[in-house]
């Protein structure tokens, strides 16, 4: 009774400013049970009321976007190889600049569902072998000119053909042809059915450029190709230094709330955190677990932790020793102290891995029925012994925050059962070409893919270009194809569960944990999206945020 009363009495607008700030902080941080408790303690209201207040607050905050102000955002990496050509984007800073300057046909929502962006609508034919996209009317490029089907066809064709250097060439390889079927209509004709095609068209590299654009570099006089339709116009671009963006006053929809934003990077993780806390930066990406406590206790900044399927993986190549031994792989899997890894190394901002690339962040496609593999030194010892190996060498590069520490933990635990796991630390540059998919034991990280199918297919599809444990399973191939065409949710889930079980038991992949996406933002940054496909809401922030 009391709860109901306070629920009806307490309203967001009645709170004091400091409580409002607290609510704002919790809303932005994606509140947890613990934080609700904190709010309830601070404001002296009951739990139910506090929860109510939070949703209330979320609505109140979300309802009042404001124009004006500017922000500085710092990514973790940049250099002379920063790109302007969307097809060649490879890093967070590229993606962010791309999102500020361009639009895609499709946009990923926080729940990963495909939303219309430059495509007003998208419809498959009966068996999903053809997709029809209606292009939005009234969209203009930064240098003038109206968006038409020609621009879309021109852009998409850049990902095809022998001399294409597009990063997602193989991802979109299933599209046989992009065809203009009307002034504002485009058709994609596929080799095989793909119900997930729209989701793929929201990838970072699919930004739509103006028909006929050839140069993406800065011109001699310092001016830039203004060939995008996005919320901000790029004013200046200095690779490895920064870029400055100002609002596109003719943006085709609401959004673009800031007057300007500057995008840069601070490569040193300690310096990046310090820049956030001292107020030099409004948003920073890739907070390292060691800095969580510092950010959480600092005034004026929030740690934004979005659960995601950022896998921290150890690849045991099935086509070479020692990974060819299933027992060795089992040993490596049982020696992972997963709970400790999530608690100590990821400081709780992550989730347990079950040696499959699918995490709870993938939603309904995650196989919750699959029993969690636990830390079991006895079983590990048994399997290592059975495999006949007494030592192995694992190549480690800091490809993701915490991966080295995971390997160090495994090494220490192996030493306790008499197995000598040697670590060979190598630099990140050159890693993907010289070590990954080459050395028998190596580490890997994968950005979360928008669908379970693309996540499983890219890594475990038989003969796939990036099948990084060289585990080729025919049944896996069948299921990958069948599940794309399956529309019955129960059957679909059963298929995904079977695939995850296959990977869990048979592949050479060890995935002890998934990391959350951990970024830091200043408290006055509002409206932050939480798309789990990349840093800072999968770099979707430029369109949405505003300053309180």
């Amino acid at each position, binding site marked *: 009774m009391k709860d109901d009363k306070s629920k009806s009495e307490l309203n967001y607008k009645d709170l004091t400013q400091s409580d409002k700030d607290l609510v704002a902080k919790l809303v932005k941080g994606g509140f947890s049970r613990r934080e609700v408790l904190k709010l309830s303690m601070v404001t002296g209201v009951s739990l139910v009321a506090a929860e109510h207040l939070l949703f209330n607050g979320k609505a109140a905050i979300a309802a009042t976007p404001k124009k004006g102000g500017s922000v500085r955002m710092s990514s973790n990496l940049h250099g002379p*190889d920063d790109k302007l050509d969307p097809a060649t984007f490879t890093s967070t800073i590229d993606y962010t600049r791309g999102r500020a300057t361009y639009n895609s046909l499709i946009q990923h929502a926080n729940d990963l569902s495909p939303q219309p962006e430059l495509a007003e609508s998208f419809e498959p034919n009966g068996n999903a072998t053809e997709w029809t996209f209606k292009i939005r009317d009234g969209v203009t490029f930064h240098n003038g000119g109206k968006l038409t089907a020609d621009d879309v066809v021109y852009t998409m064709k850049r990902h095809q053909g022998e001399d294409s250097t597009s990063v997602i060439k193989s991802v979109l390889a299933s599209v046989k042809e992009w065809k203009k079927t009307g002034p504002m209509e485009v058709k994609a004709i596929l080799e095989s059915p793909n119900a997930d095609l729209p989701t793929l068209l929201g990838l970072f590299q699919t930004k739509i450029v103006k028909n006929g654009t050839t140069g993406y570099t800065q011109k001699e006089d310092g001016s830039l190709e203004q060939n995008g339709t996005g919320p901000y116009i790029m004013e200046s671009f*200095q690779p490895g230094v920064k870029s400055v963006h100002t609002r596109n006053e003719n943006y085709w929809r609401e959004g673009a709330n800031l007057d300007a934003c500057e995008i840069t990077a601070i490569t040193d993780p300690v310096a990046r955190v310090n820049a956030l806390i001292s107020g030099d930066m409004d948003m920073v990406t890739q907070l390292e677990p060691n800095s969580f406590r510092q950010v959480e206790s600092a005034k004026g900044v929030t740690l934004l932790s979005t659960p995601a399927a950022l896998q921290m993986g150890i690849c045991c190549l099935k086509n070479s020793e020692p990974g060819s031994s299933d027992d060795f792989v089992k040993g490596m899997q049982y020696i992972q102290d997963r709970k400790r890894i999530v608690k100590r190394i990821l400081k709780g901002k992550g989730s347990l891995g079950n040696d499959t690339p699918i995490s709870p962040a993938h939603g309904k496609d995650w196989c919750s029925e699959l029993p969690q593999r636990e830390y079991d030194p006895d079983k590990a010892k048994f399997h290592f012994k059975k495999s006949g190996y007494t030592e192995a060498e694992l190549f480690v590069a800091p490809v993701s925050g915490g991966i080295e520490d995971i390997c160090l933990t495994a090494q220490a635990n192996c030493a306790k059962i008499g197995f000598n796991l040697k670590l060979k630390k190598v630099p990140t540059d050159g890693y*993907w070409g010289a070590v*990954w998919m080459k050395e028998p034991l190596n580490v890997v990280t994968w950005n979360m893919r928008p669908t379970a199918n693309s996540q499983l297919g890219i890594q475990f599809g038989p003969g796939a270009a990036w099948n990084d444990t060289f585990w080729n399973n025919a049944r896996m191939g069948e299921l990958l194809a069948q599940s794309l065409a399956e529309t019955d949710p129960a059957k679909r889930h059963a298929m995904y569960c079977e695939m995850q079980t296959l990977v869990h038991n048979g592949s050479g992949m060890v995935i002890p944990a998934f990391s959350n996406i951990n970024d830091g933002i200043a408290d006055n940054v509002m409206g932050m999206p939480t798309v789990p496909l990349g840093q800072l809401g999968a770099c979707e922030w430029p369109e949405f945020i505003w300053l309180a």
Partner: protein
Amino acid sequence: MMTRMVMQRIGIGFATLIVVSIIVFIATSILPGDVAQIVLGQSATPETLAALRAQLGLDQPGYIRYFSWLGNMMTGDLGISKAGGATISSLIGGRFGNTMMMAGFVALISIPISIALGLWAAMHPGTWLDRLVTFGTLSLISVPEFFIATVAVLILAVELHWLPSTAYMTGEETFFELMKALAMPLITLVIVVSAQMIRMTRAGILNVMSSPYIEMAILKGVPRGRIILRHAFFNAIGPIINVIALNLAYLVSGVVIVETIFAYPGLAKLMIDGVQTRDLPLVQACAMIFCGTYVILILIADVGSILSNPRLRNPK
């Protein structure tokens, strides 16, 4: 004699530049992966790699790429960054100015401080003040500079909020704002290079102090301060100029860690980025600048020490 020496040194300088370019070329070629591989990273497939390599001209043999680079270099064409596609001159332009500005400010602050402190310590050898300077400079030399930089940031930027934690420049600041933005890296670098220069100044003067003509002056009863300022300092100037020149060369090419921690866009970090992306033209361009700076500074130092030393000025 002087002119001949300078001409000879310039000739040697060119020879050194060629050797540097060959070393850099060989070194970057033995690194695992090429620029196409690094640019595409995890998303590389054999087809995209082949396409990008053809686009960047990496399918030509190494020596052809080297000589075409050398030819372009001779005509003043620095080429295009393989990794990003921007022209090398646009990448280097602003950063060259930044690097020179930082080196200049650090030199302006640290050289007078170092010489003054070094002289002062040399005037009072063996006293507690001298020991304090010796111990202080040794301590600062022996601590990694990222430690000094981070501690300075934690105190001055994060705790006290007096200074910004990064050297972030908008390009439109007033002189005062610029100084404030650059304060943290300036402080760090002044500490790092001064410690060295103080030690060298003190040692150089103490050395001259034990030479016979100074001993003679001491015996004649000339006050110690006067001896040091009038006689010893002038004779110790050669080695001190050398130390300063080499510290300046370090400020131009070696301050990677300070540039990284303070996100200061300078040349040293650019070269490391170039190595990490296997961007040969970029690495070569930076190497040429660093080597040129080194050669010029050493030349100036040599001329300086010869001018200041009668024995070297008039060889037997």
